[in-house]
């Protein structure tokens, strides 16, 4: 019973959007079904895919940006987390506190100053330049998550590797990183999601329509008409925009749950 409620709670809105995306505009705003016709249509999808910019293009932009952001974040966060784990005493406490503060800081407060930076460095309308602020904003949380995962690894594994003659970098690459795969996958997914959903910075940095990311494009669709809200196309864009995420989660699901450290130590 609880489960059914929970499922309805979380899936309900999604399914409603899915239904909406296949309905004729007239049906949505309360008009009747055209005589003899069906209320179902693919017109909404056709519209968003053929629009300017095409949603396909937008999704590609978002995926590219998300991929670069995720890769950059993980590449930086992993060594940082590893280094932090091996710090001791006061420096570690201070740095951790700083990271928590940074992770909790509301991004919205930053977008004006970031826009200023984009102007100075001429980064406006460069899609991949957005990966810089995105990475910077994701790093604190990513470092904290990965550090927690590193702390969970049996410390004797690294001791054994030290005796095997591996230096810190070799230990990170050959022992720690492979064992962190599940944590890396879930952290990466979070980072990708954050980049996929980010609105204010994308809105202010990008104006050319062929550079838009999904949230910015959605904003355009929603505000394209002053008089009617285009429910149908909007729902279609939402469905298309969440499909890649669904795919990613399904793809990494196995990684995220598999316990890779099994068999390392007794018990």
């Amino acid at each position, binding site marked *: 019973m609880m489960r059914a409620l929970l499922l309805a709670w979380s899936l309900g809105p999604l399914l409603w959007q899915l239904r909406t995306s296949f309905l004729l505009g007239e049906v949505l705003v309360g008009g009747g079904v055209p005589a003899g016709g069906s209320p179902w249509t693919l017109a909404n999808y056709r519209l968003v895919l053929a629009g300017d910019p095409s949603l396909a293009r937008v999704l590609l932009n978002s995926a590219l940006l998300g991929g670069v952001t995720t890769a950059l974040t993980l590449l930086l966060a992993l060594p940082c987390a590893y280094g932090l784990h091996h710090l001791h005493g006061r420096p570690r406490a201070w740095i951790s506190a700083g990271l928590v503060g940074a992770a909790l800081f509301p991004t919205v407060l930053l977008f004006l100053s970031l826009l200023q930076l984009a102007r100075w460095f001429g980064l406006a309308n460069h899609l991949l330049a957005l990966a810089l602020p995105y990475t910077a904003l994701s790093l604190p949380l990513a470092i904290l998550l990965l550090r927690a995962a590193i702390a969970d690894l049996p410390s004797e594994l690294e001791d054994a590797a030290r*005796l*095997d003659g591996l230096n810190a970098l070799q230990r990170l690459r050959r022992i720690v990183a492979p064992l962190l795969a599940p944590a890396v996958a879930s952290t990466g997914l979070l980072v990708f999601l954050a980049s996929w959903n980010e609105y204010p910075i994308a809105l202010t940095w990008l104006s050319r329509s062929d550079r838009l990311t999904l949230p910015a494009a959605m904003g355009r669709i929603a505000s394209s008409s002053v008089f009617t809200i285009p429910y149908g196309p909007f729902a279609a864009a939402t469905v298309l925009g969440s499909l890649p995420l669904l795919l990613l989660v399904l793809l990494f699901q196995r990684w995220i749950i598999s316990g890779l450290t*099994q068999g*390392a*130590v007794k018990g």
Partner: protein
Amino acid sequence: MKGLHLDGVCRQAGGRPLLENLELRVAEGECVALLGPSGCGKTTTLRVVAGLDPLSAGRVLLDGEDISGVDPALRRVGMVFQSYALYPHLSVADNLTLGLKIRGVPAAEREERLSRVLSLLRLQDLRPRRPAQLSGGQRQRVALGRALLRQPRIMLLDEPMSNLDAQLREELRPELRALLSGAGHPVLYVTHDQQEAMGLADRIAVLDQGRLQQVGDPRELHHNPANRFVASFLGRPAINLFPPLEGRQLAVRPEHLRVVSGGGLPARVVRAEWNGPQQVLWLDTAAGLLRLLWPASSAPPDTLRVDWDPEHTLAFEASGGDRLPRPDPAWNGDLIRFLQH
């Protein structure tokens, strides 16, 4: 001075001394067993020698050279961790050869050394498996193999056979012994198993609460323990301790108690434990519960009287437990008489 020398080694952590002024020498090719109750600092001792834990005072010397400050990667120690610490994402073969690869040993030589160790530990068939696909005993053998393959200058073994079944352990013991002493490096061997310590080690070092109690060959520890802790920790069934009297405490090993027809202490048999070659009788006496060895084949009576040769009496300080000189036989008789009433 060849070999390993722990020179006044201390380790403190969390404001608590874990090791206090440890003084121990292990010669080349010698195997010293570290024996002691759980939490006494055995693993800590090995970690300090390996360089994984810092020491707060003292030095670790190898062949007369102070290695206290040397990076663990350069110390060339082979260590079997109590928890195995196998790399879970690597196959058995890769687990063993990772260190060699890192040190740039050519592939042909790696392969040759690998197959030698694998066949020695009967692991050939398990080569491609991951640690998760191995039984506890197999994992332990892989861990042992990894330490052996390193051709170390010091060998540190932290209960390397605790997960093997008794039969395999007994089978491996002579081989391991040959392997360890043949290689000519000092070996520190941690075990809980006295039998194993006596069978494998040249000398035994008994540790309690981070302090070395006594070092010596098994015979010496058994017959001439330095204090009450060593006397009661070694030997099974455990030594009989009498109630303290006039500041000292006497003790007699179960095998030295003898049954007499007159005199001695009257005793009631409360329990008999049969263990194959003999039985252990638990006796209720005026001196508390005593253990006595009894032939396996004959049924024990309900009551009997026991006595012992004063020559076998060990005396300890009642409070500190330090060994005292053997009491004169008259005192021994006094004790018996005192207990009789």
